[in-house]
């Protein structure tokens, strides 16, 4: 009954992993220890693949673990297990919001929620900037000029200009351009 077990294990992960794909990682580490379905090293490979393929990381991880454990049915069952709790909870929350959308209390709560949500996204942006354009090891050794990744910064400038000039273009075009530039200039 490995499929049932897979569903249950990923249902648990989906229920308790709060705050994004990598929040599933501690649960998967535990799963590897208790079930022996995959090793810690395999788990690291799965993280690498999940991060370098399209799709939400948590979903990719579930599919990968499910496939490794029980083939294609395993991939489908693990993914369904992961998303079931959040679908149920979000549907309940959405219904609640609809019912109280004219309430002054709910409006006031959202007045605080929106700037905070914007700030959380801005914080993600700052960590993306550090991750993509800054080399801490080179900064410690050789200072500011060496630490900045100039090729990456230049590409970012070109793409930014592109998004301003071609406002109607689909974002996927810029992702594709980024991928092409990454290969051509060995970023």
């Amino acid at each position, binding site marked *: 009954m490995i499929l049932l077990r897979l569903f249950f294990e990923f249902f648990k992960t989906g229920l308790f992993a709060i705050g994004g794909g990598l929040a599933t990682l501690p649960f998967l580490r535990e799963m590897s220890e208790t079930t022996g379905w995959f090793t810690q090293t395999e788990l690291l490979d799965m993280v690498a693949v999940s991060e*370098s393929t399209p799709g939400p990381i948590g979903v990719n991880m579930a599919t990968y673990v499910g496939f490794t454990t029980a083939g294609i049915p395993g991939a489908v069952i693990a993914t369904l297990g992961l998303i079931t709790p959040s679908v149920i909870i979000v549907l309940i929350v*959405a219904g609640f919001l609809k019912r109280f959308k004219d309430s002054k*209390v709910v409006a006031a709560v959202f007045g605080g*929620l929106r700037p*905070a949500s914007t700030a959380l996204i801005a914080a993600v942006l700052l960590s993306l900037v550090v991750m993509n354009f800054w080399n801490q090891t080179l900064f410690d050794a050789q200072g500011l000029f060496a630490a900045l990744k100039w090729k990456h910064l230049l590409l970012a400038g070109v793409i930014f200009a592109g*998004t301003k000039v071609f406002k109607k273009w689909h974002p996927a075009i810029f992702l594709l351009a980024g991928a092409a530039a990454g290969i051509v200039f060995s970023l």
Partner: protein
Amino acid sequence: MNLYLDLFCTFARIGGLTFGGGYAMLPILEKEVVENKGWCSEEDLTDYYAIGQCTPGVIAVNTATFVGEKKAGKPGGIVATLGVVAPSLVIITVIAAFLRNFADNPYVIHAFSGIRVAVTVLVLNTVIKLLKSNVLKKGLPTLILFCLVLAASFFLGISSIALVVAAMIWGLFFGLAIHKKEVSA
């Protein structure tokens, strides 16, 4: 086109174009769902994103469920969610079955390095847009709240859930105080 089919296909496209975490999905969501389809507003998306951070599960999935539910009720929420995970199922299964060394391939590594730069730029554009609509037009208390949450998250690493709950309490306090002032004036 049938609405459910449209929801499924649109979210499958969004899932297939999400590189990285849920935040990487925002620019694509904005384009597809707000601009092209008009299924919800930018404010709605910000709300869903914030609530998605404090409800269990993957943020991308939570956001898909919210948008689908808003457009077509509970079945809509389920269909949109299945759409957003469909590309992962196909792509990951193919990679796990045939391309074990995928993540070590130098072309893949360089391509993703470039994609991450593009994602950063797209997220920057989203943040600028959200700043204009959610923060800059809303007065000083909102700006202060924005700066506090940004600093607490980026420099202090305080968890998103704690910050979202604190912001809701702040909003309740300021929002109702402002409302009271308007009523008595």
